[in-house]
């Protein structure tokens, strides 16, 4: 049977209702009538239940639901933009990581190549050192052989080194006076009665001069070879030092790149871990101040000792709270653990500031 109360009847009914329920209003009666009339509409009760659930679980009143919805839409749009920016940033980081890996690969390859070259140079250097040593030994042997040959010649010529030295001094002395030794010997031959001895002496002196020159030239050639080898050795040493410096630079660069890769991995882990709650952080950052509160109801503290879900409520507000929204208990405490976690003085209103 369809029947709707008139305005006067509604007013009368509300007035009678206030006998038992002083706060009952005409608007509430009209709301109940609308609820009764629309209860059969599909989805209406689900919508009401949804709003009630929203109010109970999220603390958002029905009247605030639309505002909250618009706020969420704005947040969603904002987050969408942020996600797009972060995706670009992520892509950029991926590119950087890829480039770093490629660079790292190239450097690693260059380092390997340089190490191989260094090993080659070291090997070559070793071979040349061996050759030098062999040459030194050979030169030494040649020198000994020549010394021995000179000694043989001395013995054959029946002269000593002192004689040769004396002859040299004599020759120098003679030449200093503007005479050739042959001339002096010829003169000596003219003034001496021992013709054979003079010839032998002249022959010995002539041969001796030739051998001395040969030894001198051989010694000069040896010195030249030695200087060239020393120069080459110094060049190789310099090259080795350069390669060592290059290797040290590359190792430093490699460790820096590895540190960059580690830091980027840390950044990615941070992004994956906290990106999901960024909306909550943005929302909290929109509050002028945040209070972290916990209820001090001793009864719930007792029950909480047995069951964590039955313990004291923890809640955040943007105004100093008056009572616990869970149990209505009026003695509230600041949640010290959250303040410690934020390194913020307990009880001081917190303005959450996010980085750029």
């Amino acid at each position, binding site marked *: *049977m369809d*029947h709707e*109360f008139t305005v006067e*009847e*509604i*007013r*009368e*009914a*509300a*007035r*009678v*209702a*206030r*006998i*038992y*329920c*002083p*706060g*009952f209003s005409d608007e*509430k*009666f009209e709301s*109940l009538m609308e609820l*009764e009339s629309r209860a059969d509409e599909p989805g209406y009760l689900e919508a009401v239940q949804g709003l009630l659930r929203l109010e109970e679980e999220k603390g958002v009143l029905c009247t605030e639901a639309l505002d909250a919805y618009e706020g969420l839409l704005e947040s969603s749009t904002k987050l969408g933009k942020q996600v797009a920016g972060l995706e670009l940033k992520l892509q950029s980081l991926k590119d950087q990581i890829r480039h770093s890996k490629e660079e790292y690969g190239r450097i690693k390859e260059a380092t390997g190549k340089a190490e191989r070259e260094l090993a080659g140079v070291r090997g070559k250097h070793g071979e040349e050192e061996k050759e030098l040593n062999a040459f030194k030994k050979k030169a030494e042997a040649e020198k000994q052989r020549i010394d021995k040959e000179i000694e043989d010649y001395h013995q054959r010529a029946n002269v000593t080194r002192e004689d040769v030295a004396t002859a040299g001094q004599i020759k120098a002395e003679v030449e200093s006076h503007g005479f050739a030794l042959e001339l002096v010997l010829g003169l000596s031959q003219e003034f001496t009665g021992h013709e054979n001895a003079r010839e032998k002496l002249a022959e010995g002196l002539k041969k001796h001069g030739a051998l001395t020159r040969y030894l001198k030239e051989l010694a000069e050639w040896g010195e030249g070879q030695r200087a060239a080898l020393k120069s080459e050795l110094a060049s190789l040493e310099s090259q080795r030092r350069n390669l060592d410096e290059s290797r040290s630079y590359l190792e430093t660069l490699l460790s820096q790149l590895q540190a960059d890769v580690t830091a980027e991995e840390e950044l990615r882990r941070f992004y994956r871990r906290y990106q999901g709650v960024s909306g909550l952080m943005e929302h909290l950052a929109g509050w002028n101040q945040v209070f972290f509160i916990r209820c001090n109801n001793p009864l719930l503290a007792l029950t909480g000792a047995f069951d964590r879900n039955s313990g004291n409520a923890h809640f955040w507000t943007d105004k100093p709270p008056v009572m616990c929204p869970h149990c209505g208990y009026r003695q509230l405490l600041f949640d010290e653990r959250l303040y410690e976690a934020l390194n913020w003085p307990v009880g001081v209103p917190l303005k959450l500031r996010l980085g750029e």
Partner: protein
Amino acid sequence: MAFQLAGIDDMSPDISDMFASIADADRINSEVEKIIGTATRNRYGGKETWKGERWCIPIPELHYDGRDIPQLIIEVKIYLVATAGVRTKQGFRLITLMGAVGKPETLAIPMVFLHALLEKDLGRFAVVARDAANTTWEVQGAKPVRLPSDFISELTETLRWKSVVAWLLEFGSQGRCVAPLVAGSLLGLQFQDSTQPVPVTKQGWTTDDLVSALESMAFRHGEAREMVNRATPRLRADITLEEAIRLTLQTGKGGD
């Protein structure tokens, strides 16, 4: 015919059936016999015999009483509709009789009781008496509520499928009159525990609240009741308790 006789033309027949168990059948039959016998005797003398059909139709009338404890009053009158064939010396005569029979039965249903019935919580009231036809409950603040058990069963079954207002509308125009008051009382009871206390400046007034408020100002109960009665003509139903107290005190001073 019975509805026309009672001046009611928009009541559902189901409502009448609902109150069929109200009347004391033996007493009604006895009265009906007397009425028909008296009627035939008055018209045709005392020796005629008669034979006929009769129907007893219960017709309820609704009232809402908000004094003391709000309650729905249902006054049930039994209307007789009878046709009788009277064999006289002149021949066979047919007569038709209609009218109210016996005393009306009055059912008083406090709103708290009706609310408890809707909430399937009648157990909250102690049963103080019961016989084959009736049960009596003790309701705080009201006289013991005595109602026919069949009526309660039928009312319970009816209210399982339709609202109280829909049930009252089946009474016709009289149901439409009391429906807002009954609905208001039930809603007030339903939301009694769920609303916050209202300050005096916004609270509506009742006679009892007003008397209590005056008693708290050191008036004796009799004095307070007298002051309220004196001020009643000036008290509108839609003013606040604070305003009602002020008017009552003004009227009381003026009366002194």
